[in-house]
């Protein structure tokens, strides 16, 4: 541990020395008498101080939790020497906040007697969060010296985004072969009535529409829409993250992605994830309860990796994008690579829906004419990008972070219904 002298040591030494100096120079012994207690204090401090040998261990009540949950941390510290006053401070973390503002805690440590310092942290953001290594400062008995160091806790928390509940999401234009909750446009075995047609050999008698057959004098059978599952790929833009005040577009995009994944998996759909950015991440579509954990584990590792390398959709493994899958893109529409990749996907015939995570709340222009003009030009460029998508029949809705996701999703659903005739 690093030893530092407190300002008190210098102050006492200066006071004592001044007293002696005045006594010697002015021939005034009372000055020496006044300075002597300070010298005695300094000497006592030097004689009594011991370098502490701290050992610490930490326990947390759980290492997997949701955003906003509390984690209880108990740090057990012991020392081979007496530490009259041990301060433990927690470095400010982006994802954790100490409950009750207790960033600094003080405790007295007796020799070989463990002291437990308990702290409660609230998780403020999803992600893989290493517990901050506390900084410890041990004071000597007289407050002249400080021994400072840090404790390696070596604990990592996995904070999952708290998903929003969605009652309805987007329907895919095409369905897959497995049974699910999505009404297929094809005809087969199902519940939902589709059409009637003349009876053909091999048709099951229970499907005969007796009312129509009696009226026409010829056997007719009912045709049904089967309920099938869909493939949904959540496309997360990891090229850009507009941040301000501890929050950013990526935070909200990941929360929305978790909500969408949970919703579709509950409907027996196959869900995959593509993190399109400097570091490409992907998860092949799959169904089942374990897939949600895989997806969330993939999502919380998401981060923006700065790169100037031009990446297109050809970098994405083909099996991650199954044919006839619905691609839901969550993007702030800032990076040209994402914009082009999404247009490429649309050109390849994928059913694409874009949810624009609005960066405007995090990008407030400075109070100057030039900044306001730049902000306005930026907004016009973004509007032009939106227009490009709409001209290609890609429904795009804007989602202001902090507002419920259900609103933009409903708008997207309506927009897709209107644009259905444009679908390839």
């Amino acid at each position, binding site marked *: *541990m690093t*030893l530092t002298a*407190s*300002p*008190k040591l210098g*102050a006492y*030494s200066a*006071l004592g020395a*001044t*007293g*002696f100096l*005045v006594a*010697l120079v002015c*021939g*005034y*012994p*009372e*000055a*020496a*008498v*006044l*300075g*002597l*207690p*300070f010298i*005695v*204090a*300094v*000497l*006592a401090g*030097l004689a009594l*101080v011991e*370098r502490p*040998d*701290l*050992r*610490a*261990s930490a326990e947390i009540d759980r290492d997997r939790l949701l955003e906003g949950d509390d984690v209880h941390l108990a740090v*057990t*510290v*012991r020392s081979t020497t007496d530490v*009259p*006053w041990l*301060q433990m401070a927690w470095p400010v973390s982006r994802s954790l906040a100490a409950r009750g503002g*207790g960033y*600094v*805690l*003080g*405790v*007295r440590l007796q020799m070989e007697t463990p*002291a437990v310092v308990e702290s409660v942290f609230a998780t403020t953001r999803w992600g893989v969060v290493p517990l901050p290594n506390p900084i410890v400062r041990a*004071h000597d*008995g*007289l*407050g002249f010296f400080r021994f*400072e*160091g*840090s*404790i*390696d806790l070596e604990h990592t928390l996995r904070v999952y985004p708290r998903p929003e509940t969605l009652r309805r999401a987007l329907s895919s234009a095409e369905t897959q072969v497995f049974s699910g909750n999505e009404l297929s446009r094809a005809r087969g075995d199902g519940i939902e009535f589709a059409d009637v047609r003349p009876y053909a050999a091999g048709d099951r008698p229970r499907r005969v529409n007796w009312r129509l057959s009696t009226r026409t004098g010829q056997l007719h059978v009912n045709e049904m829409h089967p309920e099938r599952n869909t493939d949904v790929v959540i496309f997360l833009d990891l090229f850009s993250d507009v941040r301000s005040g501890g929050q950013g577009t990526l935070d909200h995009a990941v929360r929305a992605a978790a909500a969408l994944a949970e919703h579709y998996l509950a409907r027996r759909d196959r869900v995959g994830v593509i993190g399109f950015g400097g570091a490409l991440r992907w998860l092949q579509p799959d169904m089942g309860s374990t897939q949600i954990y895989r997806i969330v584990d993939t999502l919380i590792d998401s981060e923006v990796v700065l790169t100037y390398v031009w990446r297109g959709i050809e970098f994405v493994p083909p099996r991650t994008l199954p044919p006839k899958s619905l691609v839901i893109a969550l993007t702030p529409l800032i990076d040209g690579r994402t914009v082009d990749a999404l247009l490429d996907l649309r050109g390849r015939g994928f059913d694409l829906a874009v949810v624009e995570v609005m960066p405007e709340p995090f990008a407030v222009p400075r109070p100057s004419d030039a900044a306001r003009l730049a902000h306005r030009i930026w907004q016009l460029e973004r509007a032009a990008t939106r227009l490009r998508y709409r001209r290609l029949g890609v429904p795009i809705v804007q989602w202001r972070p902090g507002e419920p996701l259900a609103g933009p999703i409903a708008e997207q659903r309506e927009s897709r219904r209107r644009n259905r005739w444009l679908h390839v």
Partner: protein
Amino acid sequence: MAPRLITAALALLGAAAFGAVSTAAATDATSVAAAAGPSGWMIPGLMSLTALACLTLALRLPNPRPIVLSIALLGAAWLVGIPASGGWRSLTALAGGSLLGVAELAYWSLDFRVAGTNQRTVYIRRAATVAALVGASVALALVPELDLSQIPVSGVELTVAGLLAAAALVAVAATLAWRLRPERDASESAARARPE
């Protein structure tokens, strides 16, 4: 009332009492301040008021730097205020202890501005340490005071003795500080507390 506020209030009260005593003592015609004229008693008074202001500033900011100035001013007020005759000079040892007490209370108030567990034990231990320190200092300061009151206060012998004493003090302090030197193989990892 928070303990740090109590210690701050005690430090301020102690400083105010010390200044009042110095100012009252300066009304004696044999004091150094009296040489400045009939209003000479105001010199330690003004010094004490400035010291009080410095102490208040240090505790309010909080910043330990003005404390040393405050204590120095109080000490100077005492030196210019005490009469040359009477029993005042023998009280200087007590004054030194009081100054140490005021300084300790002020630093204590600044040190304990953080939350903590087991604070009662910490406070009791610190109070006992401060009391022991002040007591020991006063007892030690009384010895030279008694001696110095009996001997001439100037002369080459006394100056030499003082210089030797100062050199001895520095040597003792250096010896004590030597054992706090960092280990030779200290590295970055050594600055970290070891996990169990």
